[in-house]
């Protein structure tokens, strides 16, 4: 009797895995941890930390994600949701250490007034690889306000809307910050 070769089971999406975790399947959470551990550690290192702090904080991010997983809407994308938790965790940690607010205050003019939406493809004459190279070299000199959208866009491959969901800012503000961030990078490199 001929047997059909066994087809590999299609990989579940993050959202499907999250739905299983919501139903109480703790082991499925391991899949999410394995998918996002390296990404979030890299994000933490690029953005805020250069030592071991990032690793501990990423563990804390996963614990918080588990505790709050039932607040996740499985009809939406999982990655902006977990990056939002990571963003909050990292910013809170910086505040604790520096005992000051992060420089993205609630009264930031960028978020108060409307802007023309910059096109996602508008790179101000830079190509993606070029910006990535410049970013790697100048991460420490850029202000956090511009660094985070640049890291999310160029290294984490997020689109404008996902970045807006992570930072809780208007989509047009994401475009403005990316544009200004790129100009700053250019200026820093020239200097």
């Amino acid at each position, binding site marked *: 009797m001929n047997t059909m070769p066994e087809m590999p089971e299609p990989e579940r999406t993050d959202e499907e895995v999250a739905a299983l975790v919501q139903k109480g399947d*703790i082991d499925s959470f391991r899949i999410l941890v394995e998918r996002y551990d390296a990404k979030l550690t890299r994000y933490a290192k690029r953005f805020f930390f250069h030592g071991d702090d990032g690793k501990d904080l990423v563990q804390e991010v996963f614990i918080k994600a588990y505790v709050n997983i039932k607040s996740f809407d499985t009809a939406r994308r999982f990655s902006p949701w977990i990056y939002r938790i990571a963003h909050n965790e990292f910013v809170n940690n910086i505040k604790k250490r520096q005992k000051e607010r992060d420089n993205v205050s609630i009264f930031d003019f960028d978020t*108060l007034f409307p802007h023309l939406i910059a096109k996602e493809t508008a790179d101000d004459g830079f190509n993606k690889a070029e910006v990535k190279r410049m970013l790697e070299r100048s991460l420490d000199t850029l202000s956090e306000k511009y660094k985070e959208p640049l890291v999310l866009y160029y290294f984490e491959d997020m689109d404008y809307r996902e970045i807006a969901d992570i930072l809780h800012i208007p989509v047009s503000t994401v475009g403005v910050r990316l544009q200004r961030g790129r100009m700053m990078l250019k200026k820093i490199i020239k200097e």
Partner: protein
Amino acid sequence: MKNDSDEIINTIKSGETKMHSRAYFMARAALVLLAAVLLFLLILFVATFIVFALQENGGFFATNFGPAGWGAFFASLPWTLLLLSLALVLILWIVLRRYSVVYHQPFLYILLLLIVMVSLSCVFISAGSIHGGIYRYVSRNPIPVISGVYEFETAPAGGVYRGQVVTLSTSSFVLENILGQTSTVLVTPVGIDPGDYVIVFGHGVATATIQASGVETIVDYQ
């Protein structure tokens, strides 16, 4: 050697961390919604009070009296309350900023939307019926703080007086305000009758005596 995912899964399985239930998030969302509704009602209360205060101290109608009237209008604006309502709008924005429908929009749009919603509500809610009763009550039975807020009538800004015409003579008429206090208005009464509601633009020349430089009738207004 244990890796990170083992450590996290073991922490979860040990029961050290527990997943919040859906009911917990629903209760939290309900609390946020309740806070937002209460804040909106408070903003509405303050806004209708501002309208009421402007109606009662005459500032609302002062613009009919030319540039001097506009000066009186700005002088009669309750700036503290306007700043308070702006502060409340900011708090409401902060409360609702957790929702994408709010944080995806610039604050200016949210502010404009709230101004439109409050203005529309003010059209449908009679400021006089809400605040007139409180005003008359606290005038007779002073309540700390609240009475202070409702003290605008005792010092009408910019020389604007509002009330009902009681009696007329050849060169003056008697005006009664919302509290039943009367003043004599020195002007030749033209086109007004006893019972009319009027706005008087002028200045006090003696106790309960006003030298008027303009009088306007207010139609359908109490």
